[in-house]
């Protein structure tokens, strides 16, 4: 059975399901057919799964917790939810994007909406919205299912072990599992070990479902995640622990013969504890304690239905989030120095969203979505508030913002073509760091950043288009472009009148609104089934980012290319891949970015399945190249040659 499923994957690589242009998805769980997936299977880390999505690039500060950038925009412009639940990172230095608080064992798939057409619970998404979909056994599935996996990678001695079990009946289901991941520091292409690139992570989760009546379901989720001794070679500090507690309870009612399909109401709570640690670093001038806390409680209520040609969704959501972080410095022989870096900001946000999929004749469809949200923020920490007031006399300790977005997409699928055109407008409120952050050191440009409570909302107009040509079933060519015109683009701007705090810093930057900025992304992808056994996929990408003075914005991908050849024979699959970037000559010198050289790497992977087992193995960076990408913070090098294999077993 598994053999057939795996065989089906290459055939479905160009999904026959008409995915609207703005949607993308990577499948994490192994027992689902179709879709994009990582060559390492479910054992791959969250970040490796994310890298399969188009439009997503990952900023690496270490071996763990990479920050997903979407359409060349950082997490401030991306909404990340876990099954619709809002969750916020707790580290002022962005060491813990929220994707790091789940494990691949928790997920069914990662769904991505590009641009302003986000999932209904997404707020403040300009670049896009990621929704990490949790894996639930579901009702009426296999009465009992067990899966376990183990993996090993030679570079860095990465070990992964996971096991999960599921029980399912008509009235009840429960599934749960444990995952453990451990890695030592890895070797780069030069053969040297990159110090402080180790980590370990333990994750446990459970999902429960109970059918109250044939039309009413109650579902609950609990995830507990612990990461410890995590090294960040790109930064001056590591992480002692990053712990998350995520839980939710949802009630869903379904209809059969009605205007409505389902109505789901979910309440949720999550709490994150994050503690930085510099005690392992040799050249620490002043030891610092930097803990951070993030707590979110919220709800959403989603009503969906079909009325004639319209497939609509109505969503109301709200959340209350608390973010607190401070810093205590211990200079030799003098009194400790204390400051509050996130002044206990309480954010209360409520919003309503509506979306509609309209099916039109002659294979046309239109997707429209809109959201309106109101937000109130209070600064509860008096010491942090008084400290910020030194820089912004006359500021208040409470603010409110209105944000919204509206987008529309038109699709036309005549024979051999898929055409998509979309437009949208959206705004976002500044993040807590951008508005109220206090002396946060940025190792990218060596500046201390101070938030600006007087920032205006950032807004953008988006235009996108996709053209896919499928002359025959074995070949397709896709061109995809999107452009974002920003107003009040938020970025840190140097303030020479202020004195830096971090020893060795270049100066201080204060977040400001730039009048205009532009980000554009273009990609060209081709897929060709060469023969019954061989298939080929290639892509080219190019991006542009400009600020109001026409200078380059930081962290914009240079020209990039990839080519992949796959071979399938019965239960065996082989793949060879080439990936590369051109030299990033258009780097943002004004924002502290430095030139990144061109690079190219080759990867090889193989997969074999037999009975209930699946064995995967391969070599990454076959030629052991020493390289760093434009998205590697502080130019930390990537892994050198890495031989890996993993085994998974499904019962």
């Amino acid at each position: 059975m598994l053999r057939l499923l795996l065989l089906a994957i290459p055939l479905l690589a160009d999904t026959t399901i008409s995915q609207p242009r703005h949607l993308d998805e990577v499948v994490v769980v192994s027992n689902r057919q179709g879709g994009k997936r990582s060559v390492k299977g479910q054992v791959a880390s969250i970040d490796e799964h994310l890298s399969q999505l188009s439009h997503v690039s990952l900023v690496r500060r270490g071996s763990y917790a990479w920050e997903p950038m979407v359409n060349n925009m950082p997490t401030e412009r991306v909404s990340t939810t876990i099954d619709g639940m809002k969750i916020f990172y707790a580290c002022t230095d962005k060491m813990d994007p929220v994707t790091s608080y789940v494990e691949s064992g928790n997920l069914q798939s990662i769904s991505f909406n590009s641009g302003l057409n986000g999932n209904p619970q997404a707020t403040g998404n300009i670049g896009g919205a990621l929704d990490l979909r949790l894996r639930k056994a579901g009702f009426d599935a296999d009465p009992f299912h067990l899966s376990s996996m183990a993996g090993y990678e030679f570079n860095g001695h990465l070990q992964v072990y996971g096991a999960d079990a599921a029980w399912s009946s008509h009235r009840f289901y429960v599934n749960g599992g444990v995952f453990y991941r451990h890695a030592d520091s890895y070797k780069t292409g030069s053969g040297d070990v990159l110090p402080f690139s180790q980590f370990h992570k333990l994750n446990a989760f459970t999902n429960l479902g109970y059918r109250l009546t044939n039309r009413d379901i109650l579902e609950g989720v609990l995830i507990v995640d612990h990461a410890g001794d995590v090294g960040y070679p790109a930064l001056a500090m590591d992480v002692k622990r990053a712990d998350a507690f995520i839980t939710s309870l949802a009630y869903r009612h379904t209809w059969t013969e009605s205007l409505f399909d389902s109505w789901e109401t979910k309440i949720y709570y999550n709490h994150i504890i994050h503690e930085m640690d510099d005690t392992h670093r040799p050249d620490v001038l002043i030891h610092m304690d930097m803990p951070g806390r993030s707590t979110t409680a919220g709800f959403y209520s989603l009503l969906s239905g079909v009325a004639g040609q319209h497939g609509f969704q109505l969503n109301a959501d709200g959340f209350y989030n608390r973010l607190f972080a401070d810093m205590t410095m211990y200079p030799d022989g003098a009194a400790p120095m204390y400051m509050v870096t996130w002044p206990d900001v309480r954010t209360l946000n409520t919003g309503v969203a509506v979306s509609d999929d309209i099916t039109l004749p002659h294979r046309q469809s239109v997707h429209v979505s809109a959201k309106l949200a109101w937000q109130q923020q209070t600064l509860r920490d008096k010491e942090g508030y008084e400290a910020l007031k030194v820089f912004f006399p006359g500021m208040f300790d409470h603010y409110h913002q209105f944000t919204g977005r509206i987008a529309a997409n038109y699709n036309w699928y005549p024979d051999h073509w898929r055409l998509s055109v979309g437009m949208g407008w959206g705004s976002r409120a500044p993040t807590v760091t951008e508005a109220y952050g206090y002396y946060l050191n940025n190792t990218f440009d060596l500046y201390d950043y101070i938030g600006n409570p007087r920032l205006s909302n950032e807004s953008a107009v988006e235009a996108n288009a996709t053209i896919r040509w499928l002359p025959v079933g074995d070949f397709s060519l896709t061109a995809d472009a999107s452009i974002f015109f920003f107003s009040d683009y938020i970025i840190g701007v140097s303030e020479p009148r202020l004195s830096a705090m971090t020893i060795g810093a270049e100066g201080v930057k204060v977040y400001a609104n730039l009048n205009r900025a532009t980000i554009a992304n273009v990609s060209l992808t081709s897929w060709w089934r060469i023969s019954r056994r061989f298939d080929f996929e290639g892509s080219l990408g190019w991006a542009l980012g400009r600020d109001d003075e026409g200078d380059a914005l930081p962290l914009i991908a240079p020209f990039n290319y990839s080519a992949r050849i796959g071979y399938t024979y019965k239960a065996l699959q082989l793949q060879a891949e080439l990936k590369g970037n051109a030299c990033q000559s258009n780097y943002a010198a004004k924002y502290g970015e430095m030139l990144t050289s061109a690079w190219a790497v080759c990867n090889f992977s193989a997969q074999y399945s037999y009975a209930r087992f699946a064995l995967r193995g391969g070599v990454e960076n076959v030629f052991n190249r020493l390289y760093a990408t434009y998205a590697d913070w502080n130019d930390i090098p990537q892994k050198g040659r890495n031989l890996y294999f993993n085994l998974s077993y499904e019962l």
Partner: protein
Amino acid sequence: MKKVIYSILVTVFFITVTSCNSNDDGVQKGIDIPGITIDGDADCCSAEEAIQIYDFLQTVKIVPELTTEIDGRYRVSVYTRTGSLHTGYNDLYFVATKLTTGNYIKEFTVSNFKPLMYMTKMKMQHSTPISGIVKSFNSNFTAVKQGWISLLMPTSDAGYWTLAYDANVLGQKGGVTPTEVKVDGLPVGQEWLKSFKIDGNTYYLSLVNPADWITGSNEIQAYVSVKSQTGTDPYELATEQFVIDIDPRMPDMGHHTSPDNAALTLQTDGSYRGKINLTMTGLWRIHLTIKDVKGNIVAGGDNLKDGFSSLYWDVTL
């Protein structure tokens, strides 16, 4: 008949109910302050004033060595924030009470405040800066007189301090003869009293209560006193007018500074006030440049090898 009995019962009921209460037995009605009898004495505070002063005195502590009795009828007490004195600026509060009632007397004066330090080894004496006058705290507390003393150095093997003052309470004169008081040193990281010389005159800069500062914007207050001609007379406020420029730095943080600080300028009450912004807790070194009214630098402002003035106050928050 029934009506009469009924009305008597109602009357008895009401009398019982309204007077059966032990709270008001044997005491006068109104505010009751421990140890103080309010008897309508015109020389003393009313009940409202007395309670305010009583509450204020709970926030400070008495210096027992400096208490004195006058004419067997009055007592003058001296209070400081901690009940003791330390190097640098100290607030002093004077209160006169009647021994019989314990109530606070509204009209009294304190004068001739004389601090003196006996340097045992060097066999000499010197005084220290004091406030010009001892006067009412503010219109709320007319019966509390406030002054200040800024002590040049702590009690040590090198010498000891005595304080004396005269008091006049309702026409009766009295006071305290030179009495030894202990002066504590400040902890490491606190240096609130500095001096500079111009043309042979020594001036003293006393920083007022920096322990009250918070992270954020603060008013910085100081007094400039000049050494008396004799050296043993108390040092009065300097008659010249200066401008005290401040450059607050954190020596442990690469000399990080804060924005928007304002120099201290002379106010009508004789103190110098400015604004100091503190971005975090820890050791702040407030480098000083003293200028005269014309803007010429008269002290400090010399940039040592670390680039900052050698004249500074240290405050650790």
